[in-house]
């Protein structure tokens, strides 16, 4: 049992903290306040972070990246999220699919896609699954509804797949230079047996970006609609077997488990920010001549915020360690679910502490709560909980 970090882990943590403090935090609230959703991203910030290694952190050293371990990944995501959760997610979204490139792409694909990804500070990655009528069904495939799930159609035409359909709510849908796309390649079977993954560069003919989504939180983090009209993708861009995208084998090491850890670690950063804001305000603000910190109810809230946050940190670090050990358990999913409850309660308590007649809510406190609500559908709605609970029950 050892909770200590090694020197390399601490070095990355400190580098992330410095970047977060000096570069992200100063622009975070202003970016959040930009009304037009496509304008909230700050490419200069992305470039700076990329040059520090945050975009390509998880690509292995042999392949030209930094090869940081999962514990370090969790630390970095938390530190970045402490300044701005959406910025942290913008970077880690690239890691999510970097993991996938390393795990499942063939050498040709790595050559064609990994190299430009490494070379270009503005090259971010995306992943397209959700569609208008294929949302939670993708997460919790219903065994008794064969028509559920991915419906974006891909048909083989010589050495190309021809794509028709749309994807909705796609992270980085409007800015990524490369997408991993789930397409339906067999409609005669349930989608879990009829889906294929393709690599789609953003200059693919027939692909266009639709609407850019205007979210209430995570505003820096881009999200768009993807439209495919007879879009032609070389079969050489196919990952794995046809119809095999969702048939997971033994010892699967794909980005999926990372996604659970990612949302838990990112939420932890928001919790840290909320605790920090709350501890600051209770020592500064006075009420009837006494600091807020003199009030028992304020103290109880501070205690609870820190209790929930430190419990989440303990769990996140355990999950990260398990990932490094390739000892995947149900813990990643459970920690992701917990992150939802924790980040929402902690940010709400922070707002409670900021309450006071005669003033508007602090924008910074408001932002944390808006960002935290994103977890509801990504990490903690009943579908995400049923999915994880199913694993627990099957494992018992």
């Amino acid at each position, binding site marked *: 049992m050892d909770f200590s970090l090694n020197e390399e882990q601490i070095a990355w943590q400190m580098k992330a903290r410095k970047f977060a403090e000096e570069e992200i935090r100063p622009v975070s609230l202003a970016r959040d*306040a930009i*009304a037009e*959703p496509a304008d909230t991203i700050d490419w200069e910030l992305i470039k700076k972070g990329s040059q520090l290694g945050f975009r390509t952190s998880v690509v292995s050293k042999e392949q030209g990246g930094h090869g940081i371990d999962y514990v370090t990944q969790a630390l970095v995501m938390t530190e970045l999220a402490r300044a701005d959760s959406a910025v942290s997610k913008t970077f880690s979204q690239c890691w999510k699919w970097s993991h996938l490139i390393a795990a499942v792409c063939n050498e040709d694909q790595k050559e064609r896609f990994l190299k430009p990804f490494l070379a270009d500070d503005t090259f971010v990655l995306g992943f397209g699954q*959700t569609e208008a*009528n294929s*949302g*939670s*069904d993708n997460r*919790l495939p*219903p065994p*008794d*509804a064969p*028509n*559920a799930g991915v419906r974006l159609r891909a048909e083989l035409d010589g050495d190309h797949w021809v794509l028709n359909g749309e994807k*909705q*709510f796609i992270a980085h849908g409007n800015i990524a230079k490369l997408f991993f796309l789930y397409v339906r390649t067999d409609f005669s079977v349930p989608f879990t047996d009829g889906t294929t993954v393709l690599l789609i560069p953003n200059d693919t003919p027939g692909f266009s970006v639709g609407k850019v*989504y*205007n*979210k*209430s*939180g*995570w505003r820096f983090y881009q999200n768009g609609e993807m439209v495919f009209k007879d879009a032609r993708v070389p079969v050489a861009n196919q990952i794995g077997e046809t119809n095999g995208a969702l048939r997971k084998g033994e010892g699967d090491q794909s980005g999926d488990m990372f996604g659970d850890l990612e949302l838990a670690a990112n939420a932890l950063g928001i919790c840290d920010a909320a605790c920090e804001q709350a501890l600051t305000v209770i020592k500064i603000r*006075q*009420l*009837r001549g*006494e600091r*807020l910190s*003199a*009030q028992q*109810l304020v103290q109880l809230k501070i205690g609870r915020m820190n209790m929930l946050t430190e419990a989440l940190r303990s769990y996140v670090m355990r999950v990260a360690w398990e990932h490094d050990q390739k000892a995947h358990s149900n813990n990643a999913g459970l920690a992701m679910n917990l992150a939802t409850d924790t980040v*929402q309660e902690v940010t709400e308590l922070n*707002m*409670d502490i*900021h*309450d*006071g*007649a*005669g*003033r*508007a*809510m602090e*924008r910074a406190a*408001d932002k944390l*709560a*808006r960002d935290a*609500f*994103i977890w*509801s*559908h990504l990490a903690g*709605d*009943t*579908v995400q*909980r*049923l999915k994880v609970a199913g694993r627990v029950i099957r494992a018992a």
Partner: protein
Amino acid sequence: MYNLQLSEEQLAIRDTVRDFVASEITPIAVQPARLEPFDPPLPVELIAAAGELGLRCLALDESDGGAGADTLTRCLVAEELAAGDVDVTAVLTETAVLGGLLFGQMMSADQRAQYLPAFVDDSAYHLAMAAQEPDAEPGLGTAYHRPREASLPTTTAVADGDEWVITGSKTRIANAPVAKMFVVTAASDAGTIALLVPRDAPGLKVSETPRDGGWYHGAMGDVTLQECRVPVANLLTGGNRDVSSLADQGSVLAATPEGQAINLGVARAAFDAALDYAKLRIQGGRPIVEHQSIGNMLANIAGSLELVRGAVWRAAWDADNPQARADGSLADIPHALISQVAAADMLYRAAKDAAECFGAMGVMRDMPMQKYIHDTRLFRHSGNGASDARLRLAEALAGHEPR
């Protein structure tokens, strides 16, 4: 005799408002521009149209040109309106409640004669309670269960011949940008007094509060009074109501049943949307309302709404029927605080859960669900928040008499 039946008049008013909301308000309220938190335009035409329906003068006696609506009826109206547009509701309800207080209880006969006709006739005539001051500390805090020092407004009123000269500033005053008449609290030689100050009184200035992410409902502004002069006749003596009972917050609605009813209307709109969607949205081969997990959540929301509605109506009826405490029909505890706490906690949760049913659509700014969350969150953190209300309730339970 215990009876939960609404009167025919109450049902008729509710139906009228519900129809008006469906036909006039909702189509405008769900437009993306109104769902945007940064600078949604105040729909003044809708406010005027609702005023034409009598909602601005709701609390005036019928003989005065109003609807003579009691507190419960005003709650019914507020809930219905707010299910359409919370900003429209906030402006109208502030004016309606304050109008009832002023013209019904606090003005002298001369004052009524002077101001009532214009108020009734002018559909753009709104009222504002200018009591809250910068750096005021109305929260209980560590003064819980302790003697509390009396505090006077920093705004002063000095008698000068047949005029009062008022100097000071008031902050985050509901309806200030649209009000034609202000009630201004000020310290005088005789302690705290309240003065009627028309919008055009010399020395009165209003600056609209920036919306800045949407941390108020309706219209809000700061009021500065620089040697502002009003006739001595504008002193509000209170009639049968103590002037010092005027809210020391920026809105008369903060701790009233009508204020909670607005919150309730927002959460109800969220629930109605979620229930409709859950019946339509197919996942797993069937409407999601048929999934236990979603049904369970909707049942929780429906329960919360009924519990809060019960608390708000009880508080409303309590406000108009003090005899029920005397005879033991109602517990002699502050029902308004209970409804405030319940509304703050349960309705925010209800709106969040309702939005969760929509998946990613629940966070989109061009869709209503995120705004319902935002609006109920704003109620939760309005004024001194629910924690403060709980402490006030605790003092009442313990029989503490604040000095």
